[in-house]
């Protein structure tokens, strides 16, 4: 998964990565050459008392060191370019992919998870790539190079490696096999304890009201104990690694001195070579140790790349056809032809054989309880979901044949949860119509019964709006969302229960103004409150996904039992506030 992701996203940086690899190879060779020179100093300089040789070789070493430093900085430069570039591209890919998501994919992933993926997971990949490029590349080169150089110094002495490398590999394998699964289980336990604490904080009133502090203590105690014992095991395994590797390294040194001593004594090897050999061995071991540290990073990067891949490769359930059909005439007619809709995996369809036609210039209302399928029905029109059976036509053309941008351009949607974007009142109102004049904005505000409070806000149209619109009240938010749709001047309006936070008076005035302002448009209103919709041209009663009646308030009161039930339940016991 990690490899696949990197292969795709690192490709544009092949040049940078190539440069890094070349630089790291040069750097590793240089680093391997230094002990060789040091051996020369001992063999040819020290042992022969040749001081000028010592100084001369020293100068060469210094020169190499300087070059190596410059090369290393270059390596970091190109590695950073590549890894941060991959990060940037991944973020762009994730965002782009999500932009094309339909409501189904949004629900599946959820906003918080998408944000974590776009930041933390991308960061994991960046970090992994950066370290891989700067260190991981050099580890095998140093290890292999070290072995070659060691063999060059002395083949017999290199036999030590036959013992040392498997020993080290065993340590690495042990760490990997025992620590990695524990790390995973540790994360689960941390999540669990955080969950318990979160519940205790959110539910503090209930816990105290039911006097269940003792129960909560026991629940927490269990989680705390679990977490602590796992953490203890992880850490106790972890503290073995460093001493063990250190012991292997040091014992190797001792072994080389012992066997090397014999070789030197019998004249088979100059002493300088033994010193160099020691340094090569240490270098090999160091690179292996680095590899251990890096191997720990792999599972995390793996997990992150899987989570990223999931988003990037998710195909939106709603896609545009290759050849879109442009409606020949923008009639504004919305037609549902025997529509049945079920969520994937859902047992029962949410909508059954819904069939009606919304003509322009009329206000149609849909009423029904939660779960009756009102909002679902409304969401089919902008193709947030696709019908399972039947057809849905806007302007006489099936929505599945239209270009999405065109379709959306025809609609003015006011969702149930009024959401405003950070910016000003004006930027929010112009959301669907960048070119709207201030007069148009004020007009829309007037219709939406929002003029008074916007005028009262410091700055008027330029008054700041916080993310989500949290700095205005729920009712104000709904009215601004309505105004936003009005500014767009679409042919078809979809109001999804967006009058619920308004008091009855405002609700009535708004509907009156709206009626005048949307005279030629097709208007569909979804509502729970009877008073909101009883004056509509037509009312569609929806119950458990079926149309139970279509007609005016008076007609339905006379003929439609479910409608009468709703009216009774609400107006018989009218709700306050």
């Amino acid at each position: 998964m990690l490899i696949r992701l990197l292969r795709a996203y690192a490709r544009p940086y092949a040049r940078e990565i190539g440069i890094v690899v070349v630089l790291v190879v040069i750097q590793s060779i240089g680093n391997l050459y230094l002990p060789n020179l040091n051996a020369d100093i001992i063999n040819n300089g020290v042992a022969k008392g040749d001081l000028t040789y010592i100084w001369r070789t020293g100068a060469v070493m210094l020169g190499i060191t300087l070059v190596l430093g410059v090369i290393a900085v270059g390596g970091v430069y190109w590695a950073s370019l590549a890894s941060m570039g991959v990060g940037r591209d991944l973020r762009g890919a994730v965002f782009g992919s999500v932009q094309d998501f339909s409501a189904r994919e949004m629900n599946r992933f959820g906003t918080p998870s998408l944000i974590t993926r776009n930041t933390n997971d991308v960061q994991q990949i960046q970090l992994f790539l950066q370290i891989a490029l700067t260190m991981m590349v050099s580890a095998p080169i140093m290890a292999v190079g070290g072995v070659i150089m060691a063999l060059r110094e002395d083949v017999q002495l290199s036999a030590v490696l036959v013992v040392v490398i498997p020993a080290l590999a065993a340590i690495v394998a042990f760490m990997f096999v025992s620590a990695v699964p524990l790390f995973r289980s540790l994360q689960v336990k941390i999540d669990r304890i955080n969950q318990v604490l979160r519940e205790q904080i959110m539910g503090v009133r209930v816990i105290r009201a039911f006097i269940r502090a003792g129960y909560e203590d026991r629940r927490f105690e269990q989680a705390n104990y679990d977490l602590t014992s796992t953490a203890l095991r992880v850490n106790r395994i972890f503290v073995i690694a460093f001493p063990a590797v250190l012991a292997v390294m040091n014992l190797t040194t001792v072994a080389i001195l012992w066997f090397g001593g014999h070789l030197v004594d019998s004249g088979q090897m100059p002493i300088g070579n033994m010193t160099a050999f020691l340094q090569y061995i240490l270098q090999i071991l160091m690179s292996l140790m680095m590899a251990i540290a890096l191997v720990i990073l792999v599972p995390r990067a793996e997990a992150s790349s899987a989570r990223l891949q999931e988003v990037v490769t998710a195909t939106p359930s709603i896609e545009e056809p290759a050849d879109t059909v442009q409606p020949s005439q923008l009639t504004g007619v919305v037609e549902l032809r025997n529509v049945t809709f079920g969520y994937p995996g859902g047992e029962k369809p949410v909508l059954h054989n819904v069939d009606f036609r919304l003509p322009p210039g009329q206000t149609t209302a849909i009423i029904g309880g939660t779960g009756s399928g009102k909002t679902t029905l409304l969401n089919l029109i902008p193709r947030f979901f696709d019908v399972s059976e039947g057809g849905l036509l806007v302007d006489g053309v099936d929505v599945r044949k239209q270009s999405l941008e065109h379709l959306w351009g025809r609609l003015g949607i006011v969702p149930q949860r009024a959401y405003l974007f950070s910016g000003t009142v004006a930027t929010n109102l112009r959301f669907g119509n960048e070119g709207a004049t201030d007069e148009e904005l004020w007009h829309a505000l007037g219709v939406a019964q929002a003029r008074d409070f916007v005028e009262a806000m410091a700055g008027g149209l330029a008054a700041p709006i916080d993310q989500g619109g949290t700095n205005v009240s729920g009712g104000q938010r709904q009215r601004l969302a309505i105004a936003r749709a009005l500014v767009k001047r679409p042919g078809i309006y979809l109001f999804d229960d967006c009058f619920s936070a308004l008091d009855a008076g405002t609700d009535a005035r708004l509907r009156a103004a709206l009626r005048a302002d949307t005279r030629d448009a097709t208007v569909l209103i979804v509502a729970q409150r009877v008073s909101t919709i009883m004056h509509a041209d037509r009312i569609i009663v929806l119950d458990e996904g079926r149309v139970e009646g279509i007609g005016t308030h008076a007609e339905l009161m006379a003929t439609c039992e479910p409608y009468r039930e709703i009216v009774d339940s609400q107006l018989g016991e009218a709700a306050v506030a």
Partner: protein
Amino acid sequence: MGMGGPPPAKIHDAGRTLRQLLGRLRPELPLIAIVVLLGTGSVVLSVIGPKIIGNATNVIFDGIVGKMLPAGLTKEQAIALLQAHGKGQIAQMVSGMNVTPGVGIDFTALGQILLLAVAVYLFASVLMWAQGYLMAGVAQRTVYAMRRDVEAKLSRLPLKYFDSHPHGDVLSRVTNDVDNISTTLQQGLSQIVTSVLTVVGVLAMMLWISWLLALIALVTVPLSVVVTLLIARRSQRQFAAQWKWTGSLNGHVEEMHTGHALVQAFGRRARAREIFDEHNQKLYEASFRAQFLSGIIQPAIQFLANLNYVAIAVIGGYRVATGTMTLGDVQAFIQYSRQFTMPIMQIAGQMNLLQSGLASAERVFELLDAEEESSDVDTGARLGDVTGEVALEHVNFRYEPDKPLIDDFNLQVLPGQTVAIVGPTGAGKTTIVNLLMRFYDIDSGRIRVDKVNTAEIPRDEVRRAFGMVLQDTWLFAGTIRDNIAYGKEGATEEEVVAAAQAAHVDSFVRTLQKGYDTVLDEDASDLSSGQRQLLTIARAFLADPGILILDEATSNVDTRTEVLIQKAMAQLRRGRTSFVIAHRLSTIRNADTIVVMDGGKIVEQGSHAELLRREGFYYRLYNSQFTEAWSAEGNGQAPAAASHAPARA
């Protein structure tokens, strides 16, 4: 290296926090002493190691040189011989060595030295492991206790604390901060000791071997530190910029994702992408600079280390050649100088870790030191079987001392009566709940339940008398059964089912595949808000309290479920004194007393008829909010005064 964490949090009083943290470590002090001892031991042994290895090299080199010299001579004679042959250079070197001319490597001596080295190194590793093993215990036990105390503290904090601190902040203290302390204790403390000891030990050995070479090595150390600091300061600035851009990018992403459908339907995808790309590019630039700058620290240090290596190799070689130093010492020195820079770098990293750990500790201690609920007064009085008589007498209460809220409030409720609390949104209707349940203590006056002053019995005893169904339906991650059983300690299966039946939720639960064993996820998102409400009602049924507190709000609940909820609530209220935060006309009109609230204060109280007659706030509220629905009923029940009722938003 690394991505750089968030900008380090500021610590207000590091000394105090450190003292507090050490105070928490007190039970572990004997073990910590052992950890330090073990650490010292392992450092001393690791520091001695290279010197022993150096001695072994010397034995080998002595043997080589000895073999080259004619046998039978003393060392002095050999030196004289070399000088006579014009080999003054080698003579000088030999004079500094322990050579017996004609004799090769002394393998007995070499064997002994190497065995010693093996013992020293193995012992050092064992000590190091033991140190880490013990420290893991110390750290985990300390954090375990800290978590336990924090959790216990949560149940002793007054409600006021939760209401006045953002939940996210409290949560972050008890989770992220405690985790951070755990990391600091595990990795930071013992390593800092080891690092400092290593630096001291290595320095001592280097000075002992050769003060000249030590001086050279020491020059590169401050150089490394200065280089590191210089680069780190610049990269820190870039890391800060990186965090800033990450934040703004996240803000944009969050907003665009939350308003996803709107962005699509209003044709804003291209613009959203443009803004994203701008932020993304800035983030890329900042993180590239941060990564590059912090990345060159390592090569820079490596370069200095190599410089050092070359200097030691050259000068050491010169000195061996001139007989003023042994080859083994040079070799040992090279090893020491390599051991020297690493702990210094580590100390820098550990200081950062320690700083962020202390910042976290400070935040946790702030929570642990927060003022607790006043301790329970217990006069021994008990409520027993509650009849449900409630009396509020001359009650005064304010959330903030300078904001008058409830002054001299009196209310007499007889067993079985219903009190409706009404008022516009945000009128402070939950204040009454807070006082009845003793979530907050009244400033003066008395609240009596069955003639017992609730201030004079333990809080739990008061709460036992009440059952509560709030609009904020709190369910926890667990089975439906556990969530209902929450109402009563040790509830049986039959009781749970009976409660569910009474709350009209049993049949729904049985439609679920796993029935009562269905596990709710954390936000119970698989249930509708109406179903959640029914579960909390079942919980209250199970608790079977003498007095009820109900929040009637049923927004977002479909009509059918609403009917169920109403039925269940009505059934629950039967025969019990109830305080209802009321939203339905029927409840309000039938209530024995209506308490009208506005702006946090109680503005009126009385029966429906009394309040209407008074033509005050309730009268206006009632008219403005019910008129439309009223007239819609079309049966002419609208109050005559409706026409001149002032509109209220």
